[in-house]
């Protein structure tokens, strides 16, 4: 993957989050489209977390600089960016796990965040059933834990050991633990890591359904630059600063995206709307099958606790 860091400050989006909400790619050059594709109109009071001018460096290395970010109720935002671009750092700052060197973070009062971390390799030395693991969060009753497990399609594994779960099952259990907190915002760091393609589509469908049913905000860090969940209202591309942002269909066409990830990545960018949303051509390159990527064709039935 070609990552060409773009130091030119003029390519940063204008300060302030209001530009994100119009649902268009918004990358440096002030090309304003008409508001045709604007997905959801928000009121200002719906902002769950807003951050302005975030900067953080560690050991003399700048990890994030001048980052503005916000996420609203009922909105799915996907963060993409090359390795080491600061995606996970941004997530940790928003979660309050680390303090930024500069910048302000505002959370809507009483906001509860459900967090699904990037790496979850439970030490096999700890005997831990799924039920016990769920009770470690904000517990509630065992009945409630079972209900939430059913909601994420993982009822089957309730008495299994955590260390024996498959990638997809583990992600569902982690999601259940996050949901048990009754969050207003779900933060998922690479939620489809270790999950096969079918499981990936199912997980995305599940996350989309949870947003629809619970009215959650969802902040997702994508493991893959090329494939982004179709129901994302915005894709925010981070490389130390916010390099560009917009609806999934437009962000890959953005000049800043192309500069950052290269022509190859821009051409193979696909929106995950369906499990067969892309095929592989002879060169092995993923290509969208249908021109109507990004529609809501995602509500396929999901196969239970698979």
């Amino acid at each position, binding site marked *: 993957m070609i990552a060409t860091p773009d130091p030119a400050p003029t390519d940063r989006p204008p300060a302030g989050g209001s530009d994100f909400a119009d649902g268009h790619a918004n990358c440096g050059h002030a090309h304003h489209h008409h508001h045709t594709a604007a997905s959801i109109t928000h009121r200002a009071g719906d902002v769950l977390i807003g951050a302005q001018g975030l900067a953080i460096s560690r050991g003399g290395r700048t990890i994030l600089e001048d980052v503005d970010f916000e996420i609203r109720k009922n909105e799915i935002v996907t963060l993409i960016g090359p390795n080491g671009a600061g995606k996970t750092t941004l997530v940790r700052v928003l979660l309050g796990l680390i303090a930024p060197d500069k910048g302000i973070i505002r959370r809507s009062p009483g906001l509860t965040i459900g967090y699904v971390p990037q790496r979850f390799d439970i030490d096999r030395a700890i*005997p831990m059933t799924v039920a016990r693991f769920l009770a470690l969060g904000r517990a509630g009753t065992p009945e409630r834990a079972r209900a939430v497990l059913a909601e994420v399609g993982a009822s089957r594994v309730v008495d299994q050991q955590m260390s024996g779960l498959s990638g997809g099952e583990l992600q569902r259990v982690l999601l259940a633990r996050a949901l048990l907190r009754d969050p207003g915002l779900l933060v998922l760091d690479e939620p489809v890591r270790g999950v096969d393609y079918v499981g990936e589509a199912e997980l995305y469908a599940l996350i989309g359904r949870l947003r629809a049913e619970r009215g959650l905000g969802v902040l997702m860090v994508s493991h893959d630059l090329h494939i982004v969940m179709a129901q994302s209202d915005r894709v925010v591309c981070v490389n130390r600063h916010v390099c560009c942002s917009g609806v999934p269909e437009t962000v890959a066409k953005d000049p800043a995206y192309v500069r950052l990830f290269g022509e190859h990545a821009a051409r193979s960018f696909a929106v995950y709307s369906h499990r067969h949303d892309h095929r592989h051509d002879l060169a092995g390159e993923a290509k969208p099958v249908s021109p109507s990527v990004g529609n809501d064709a995602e509500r396929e039935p999901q196969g239970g606790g698979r």
Partner: protein
Amino acid sequence: MSLDPFILRALAAGIGVAVIAAPLGCFVVWQRMAYFGEAVAQASLIGIALGLALQLDLTASALAVSAVLALLLIVLARQSLVPLDSLLGLLAHAALALGVIATSFVSGPPVDLLGYLFGDIFAVSTQDLWWVFAGGAAVLVALAWLWKSLLSMAVHEELAAAEGIPRDLVKGAFVVLLALAIAVAIKIVGILLAIAFLIMPAAAARPLSSTPERMALIAAVIATAGVVAGLELSLSFDIPGGPAIVAVLAAMSGVSLFGMALRAGAQ
């Protein structure tokens, strides 16, 4: 076993320490802190030398030095240039060397170094019993209170922190409890075997457990059985008490882990 007072005291102290050490030992195993515990234990020799020189309560001075070292270690672990295991190896042996040197400076009757290093369970005094039971009760109450937070952090520290657990506070409290458990375990099995007394029952209990709570409980039962059997062996064959207990516990963990390994191989 005939029940002379010194045997009763040994039994009471041994069982008391077994019950305290088992759940803490589980956390040591879960969080890969065996070497951390070793360093904390070895630092206590400096504390004992200080206590002898200044005529303080030896358990209290050992505990104080161990706890200070443990808290320092948490801070030192934040740097990442030298890996933690090297750092612990360095500190554990530096502490042991300094401790032996310090005891050589103590005036008065010669210091029973062997007794401190390998324990002298039959020399347990009534005052020691107070330490075991009052200290032990404090450890168990604190542990019950912190259990959920500690377990959450052992499973996934970042997730626990994101869910609002004050990780530095919980970690700090844990190492102080660990230092206390080690300080009382030293009475039974000595500085060099204290950490073994913590981790062996936990290791033996792991293959038999499906939840963390059950593992702590089974570890306590195993540790208690190890104390009783070790004392019996020690009296019957006139062998040192602390090493006898540790040898029994080692055999128990060996059987448990080999059984597990054979079952895993058969599948």
